[in-house]
């Protein structure tokens, strides 16, 4: 049994909120630069240049890459041999409060979806707990902007729709979103499970590095095929036309029911943010 103080968790979340919002991960920056090199359309080249200049300014000045500093999605991999001393959930919310206040991040959370009064500190976080073997605690903070979140969709397909149905739904979702989610986008896809599990997997897929290859060759090939088809749509950066509509397609899948084929598509913009730390 290993004891971790709640205060340590608060401080880690605070730091990760600021870091994730001001600094993109290297895999994403590299992918954007690679796409800039391959992009043949002049208007699109200009937009990608702005995107690169923007994250460089954010890096240099420690300022948010985007003004939508998101809802703080916090993923915890909790080792089953860890004991947290103090209130774990409150420690996470407090980390978000401190990070968003001390980091000059935007407070974008309302306390109730219908009365819509801003909480003023970006709490609460959206927390996803995962119990794993071991005595470590991994915290990932992924601030999620809503321009792209609003363009995300879920479908309960029929088993007979099969792989073609899945492909068609993913591509339709991206095409209908068009310029709204700030392309070039990262496309998180969850296939299988239940209604809610598919959506969770789609979100979790966005955490995978964009240069990583799916461990299952079948799904690796499906990711590549979907990316190719999306980039043939011609939507381009910001929707002004071009080859670079998506930077990556990441799929997560799991077993499902004999009667179902849930598919969720969680779209993220070119500011796909996440930072992790292991305690």
């Amino acid at each position, binding site marked *: 049994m290993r004891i971790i103080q709640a205060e340590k968790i608060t401080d880690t979340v605070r730091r990760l909120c600021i870091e994730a919002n001001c600094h993109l991960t290297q895999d994403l920056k590299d992918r954007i630069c690679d796409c800039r090199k391959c992009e043949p359309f002049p208007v699109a080249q200009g937009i990608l240049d702005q995107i690169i200049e*923007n994250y460089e300014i954010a890096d240099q000045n420690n300022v948010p890459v985007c*003004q939508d500093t998101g809802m703080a999605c916090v993923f915890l991999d909790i080792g089953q041999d860890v004991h947290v001393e103090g209130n774990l959930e409150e420690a996470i919310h407090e980390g978000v409060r401190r990070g968003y206040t001390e980091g000059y991040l935007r407070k974008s959370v309302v306390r109730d979806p219908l009365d819509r009064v801003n909480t003023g500190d970006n709490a609460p976080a959206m927390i996803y707990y995962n119990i794993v073997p071991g005595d470590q605690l991994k915290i990932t903070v992924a601030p999620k902007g809503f321009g792209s979140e609003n363009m995300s969709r879920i479908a309960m397909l029929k088993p007979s729709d099969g792989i073609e149905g899945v492909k068609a739904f993913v591509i339709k979702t991206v095409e209908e979103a068009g310029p*709204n989610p700030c392309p070039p986008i990262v496309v998180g896809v969850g296939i299988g499970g239940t209604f809610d599990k598919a959506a969770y997997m789609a979100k979790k897929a966005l955490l995978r590095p964009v240069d990583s290859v799916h461990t299952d060759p079948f799904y690796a090939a499906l990711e590549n095929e979907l990316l190719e088809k999306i980039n043939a749509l011609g939507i381009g950066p910001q929707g002004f036309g071009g080859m670079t509509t998506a930077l990556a397609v990441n799929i997560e899948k799991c077993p499902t029911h004999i009667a179902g084929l849930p598919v969720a598509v969680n779209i993220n913009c070119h500011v796909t943010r996440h930072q992790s730390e292991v305690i």
Partner: protein
Amino acid sequence: MTKRITTPFTREDARTLKAGDTCLITGVIYTARDAAHKRLCELLSAGKPLPMEMENAIIYFVGPTPAKPGQAIGSAGPTTAYRMDAYSPALIAAGQTGMIGKGKRSKEVIDAMKQHGAVYFGATGGCGALLSKCIKKAEIVAYEDLGAEAIRRMEVEDFPVVVIIDSEGNNLYETGREEYLASRRG
């Protein structure tokens, strides 16, 4: 060729611009997004005065991050514009000539733009750190209680935008994609 725009931005100015034009805006613009638009339209419906001059105004759909010490404003890129579709026609009828945002607009908004002479500009979404460098001054003029959603008066210098939809209803989202796809076929 990049066109220079100075505010106030008149209906005549608006009618000279074409979808696809790149422009640099210098002068005063106002910020408003979801909650502020709702309040502005409630004032219009009640026949009450607005908290800022709407005639020849450009409204930037943005909720910036707070300014760090020494900054005029924090990161300040555009938000998705379709959420303002319910409100923009009334504001255009009340004198607004320019909108800065990103993403698609409704037929009702485009009809109002054509009828009155207004332009929908795009700033690059997700580039708030870059765009904030063109904002020299920002002060809240109304609805401070809304925080990031308050209405701000901003002084901008060479603020980079592109005309997405012009006053004739031409739409860069349609023409740009077609042009790119045609270039691939050719």
